[in-house]
């Protein structure tokens, strides 16, 4: 077996900033990321959507780089940039020709040191974010399904259960004082990791990190609310209206074991047995064989990138002439089968090969044209959650050691009604309404 190993260097600056360097000279391109350990899960109550709105504000200007400069500096250096807000982290990242590396580090340090934004910037980005929510959720068929639909049904702790994109009233209520307070609390070097990947030497990367970030003052350790969920006793169900789509949809989420445990590794492989594309049991059974569903997919999203309660989610679009109950019954039959009979040795071996192959692609894979996003993301999460970026080279071991009985055991232990939530996305118009209409012009 050909095992991929990533060379990494890890250091902590005096101000508490973690620095991780992963040199690779395949191309004269450097990828830089700064991850802060704060996501939408722990944003302030009464300010739903704020972590994401704040991410937008980080592009609006800092002490020495006013609005428009952030984007302009990176693009005009031949690079790409973006940011994204997750459950437990928020990231800012750039991929540039390696001769622009210092410039990127300067910019990231400048905005870690001092955000400089005004009311006009906030109004502008609040408008932009609302259009983002409309284009991704409110004006799309099945928008927000199921990632915004399931949490309020599945969870009881506000941290896990609220609207992460934000209620518009909460977005409107956010003011500059909120922005500065959030920045001061969470955007401190001792709550962040800097990553430099690609065309850089380890020593050079560490020296540059010290040069640009070394004198940013550290802050108080940020407070973190406990995202723990009270014990669930019964299955939870909810319904959400579907305004545009014509097929009924169902999302079924099971809360997964704590990360980096034996159960978690087994659950990940069970997830592959169920949701591994066209070979997965859910698609094969519901779409290919029983043909009750038109689409059926799912899984544990971003399995290495969360640090609190999360779910393995199955997403089903089913035929209009088959009831939701019948569809859930068909799904339950798939679950029962794996609980009663487990999976075969052959199936487990196949899944392990695929898992390893997918893991390499995750490490190599880019995002929005930016190479090494995946490696950056894993290194960052392993540093912030586990203080061990080197897990990137060993985390596979736990998955490859899973045994047949482990898979069957987690199926019995976690795929229970009292550990799941079900959301029905019900169309207000049925697919049959369009059948009698005229041929398209």
């Amino acid at each position: 077996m050909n095992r991929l190993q990533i060379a990494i260097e890890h250091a902590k600056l005096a101000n508490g900033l973690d620095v991780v360097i992963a040199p690779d000279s395949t191309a004269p391109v450097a990828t830089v990321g700064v991850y802060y350990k704060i996501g939408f899960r722990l944003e302030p109550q009464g300010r739903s959507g704020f972590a994401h709105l704040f991410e937008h504000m980080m592009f609006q200007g800092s002490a020495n780089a006013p609005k428009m400069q952030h984007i302009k500096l990176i693009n005009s250096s031949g690079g790409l940039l973006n940011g994204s807000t997750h459950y437990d982290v928020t990231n800012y990242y750039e991929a540039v020709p390696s001769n622009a590396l210092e410039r990127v580090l300067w910019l990231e340090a400048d905005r870690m040191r001092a955000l400089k934004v005004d009311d006009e910037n906030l109004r502008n980005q609040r408008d932009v974010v609302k259009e983002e929510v409309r284009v991704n959720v409110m004006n799309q068929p099945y928008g927000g399904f199921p990632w915004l639909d399931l949490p309020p049904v599945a969870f009881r702790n506000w941290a896990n259960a609220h609207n992460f994109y934000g209620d518009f009233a909460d977005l409107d209520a956010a003011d500059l004082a909120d922005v500065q307070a959030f920045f001061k609390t969470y955007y401190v070097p001792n709550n962040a990791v800097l990553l430099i990947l690609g065309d850089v030497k380890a020593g050079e990367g560490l020296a540059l990190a010290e040069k640009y970030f070394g004198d940013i003052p550290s802050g108080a350790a940020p407070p973190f609310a406990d995202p723990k969920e009270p014990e669930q006793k019964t299955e939870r169900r909810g319904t959400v209206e579907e305004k545009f789509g014509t097929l009924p949809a169902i999302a079924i989420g099971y809360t997964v074991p704590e990360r980096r445990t034996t159960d978690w590794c087994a659950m990940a492989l069970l997830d592959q047995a169920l949701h591994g594309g066209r070979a997965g049991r859910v698609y094969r059974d519901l779409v290919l064989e029983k043909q009750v569903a038109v689409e059926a997919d799912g899984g544990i999203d971003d399995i290495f990138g969360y640090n609190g309660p999360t779910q393995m989610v199955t997403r089903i679009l089913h035929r209009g002439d088959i009831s939701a109950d019948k569809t859930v019954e068909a799904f339950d039959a798939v679950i029962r089968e794996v609980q009663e009979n487990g999976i075969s040795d052959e199936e487990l071996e196949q899944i392990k090969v695929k898992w390893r192959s997918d893991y390499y692609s995750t490490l190599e894979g880019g995002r929005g044209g930016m190479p090494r996003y995946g490696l950056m993301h894993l290194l960052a999460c392993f540093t912030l959650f586990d203080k061990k970026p080197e897990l990137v080279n060993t985390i596979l071991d736990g998955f490859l050691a899973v045994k047949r009985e482990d898979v069957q055991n987690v199926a019995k232990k976690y795929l229970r009604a009292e550990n799941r939530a079900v959301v029905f996305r019900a169309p207000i118009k049925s697919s049959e309404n369009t059948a009698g209409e005229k041929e398209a012009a």
Partner: protein
Amino acid sequence: MATQTRTQGAVTAVPALGAERPVTWPKRTRARLANGLEVLLAESHAIPKLHGQLSFRSGNAAAIDRGPGLAEMTATVLRTGTKLRISRRIEEDLRSLGADLSSSAGADTSAIAFAGLTEMAEPLLGLVNELARDASFVDGEFERERRLKLEEVKLDRTQPGFLAGERLRKVLFGEHPYAVASPTETQVSAYQRADLLDIYKDFYTPENALLLMVGDFDTATMLKSIEKTFGAWSGKKPKLPDVADKAQPRGRRVYLVHVPGAVQTQILCGCHAITRKHADWIKLGLTNSLYGGAFNSRLVMNIREDKGYTYSPRSGVQALRQHGYFSVSAAVRNDVVAASLTEIFYELDKLRSVPVPDAELADAINYLTGIFSMGLATQDGLLSQLATVAMNELPDDYLETYRERVRALTPTDLLETARKYFDSANMQIVVVGDRAQIEGQAALFGELHVYDAQGNLLS
């Protein structure tokens, strides 16, 4: 390094760019098997995997006389069974090889794309070969995939982005096959298994194919595997059907696709442009990048960062094999549809009227040349760059010379390019949204035609 001053310890001046490191594109090896199959290989050793595609130079446009979307349907069904393996076996074999595979067809090509562990390259190639030569198109599989396709085409009509793109293609292309973005329900219902078999026999031949692979392999060894696997395959290049000319819409017209209850309006404007083979392609690429092709572009800075009308405005050149078109899109707040269109045209006309300042041009050149090299860093990025060159029959040194060709462009080149291809007077405007909220605004920009989501003309 630029002179730096320190205030409270911070470096306040932007660091200058360091010396540029050379960009070296990997060696490509071309071969042609005796049966006509073209092969293009490049090594890339960052991960122990390979990425490849077997592409055929015929797609939905070449199948238009037999039925819109038939090439896509053929590609969909071919993975569901061969003479040697049933559907379930194919999917499980792929999993055991650590592989992903997809088969699909666009307007101009049909393709089997695959990726997997290099330690199992040979069996993966064997499966690709089987799918290309011995697919069995089992009745039951075909019937199911057709039913799924019917649901998919219905769902498409609930997506604003699809509705906008479909209408623009109809308006720009008229009777030309590129006018068809997707088949209708009636057309899908009429598909016959025999049609798929015909397409399969005609399109999926070695003379019509290019096998492109990038990955952690040794080229000479891989060439031998390819020869061994695909050598016995045979088949001629298909005859391409004659197609009608594209439409030539003159004057601005507005096409409103009415979606009751829409809380936002999808704008899509477009006009004819050029294909990738055209001598002006690189000029148009740079002009587009400056207009709306980058985050830092004029359109994004204007209607997003300054005015907050939209989240994701962008422009691009859609290069199909026979024709290309330029388009601008933005999903905007309902009450700023007219305001957004005004800015879209203002920025187009400005590029047609006023030469781009030197500094802005330099920034745009840096951007385009910089992001061009990012494809080098991943196997699928490299694959996609190589595919673009090969499928468009661009010169062999295209990748190596691209950056210097971009760097040679001047403000005059951009002015001329904008005047030629940002055809603002003949731009066709599609808006998808709630008629009651946007009709008055849309009508300000040209003769208005209103459709419903099914494509029926309402007025």
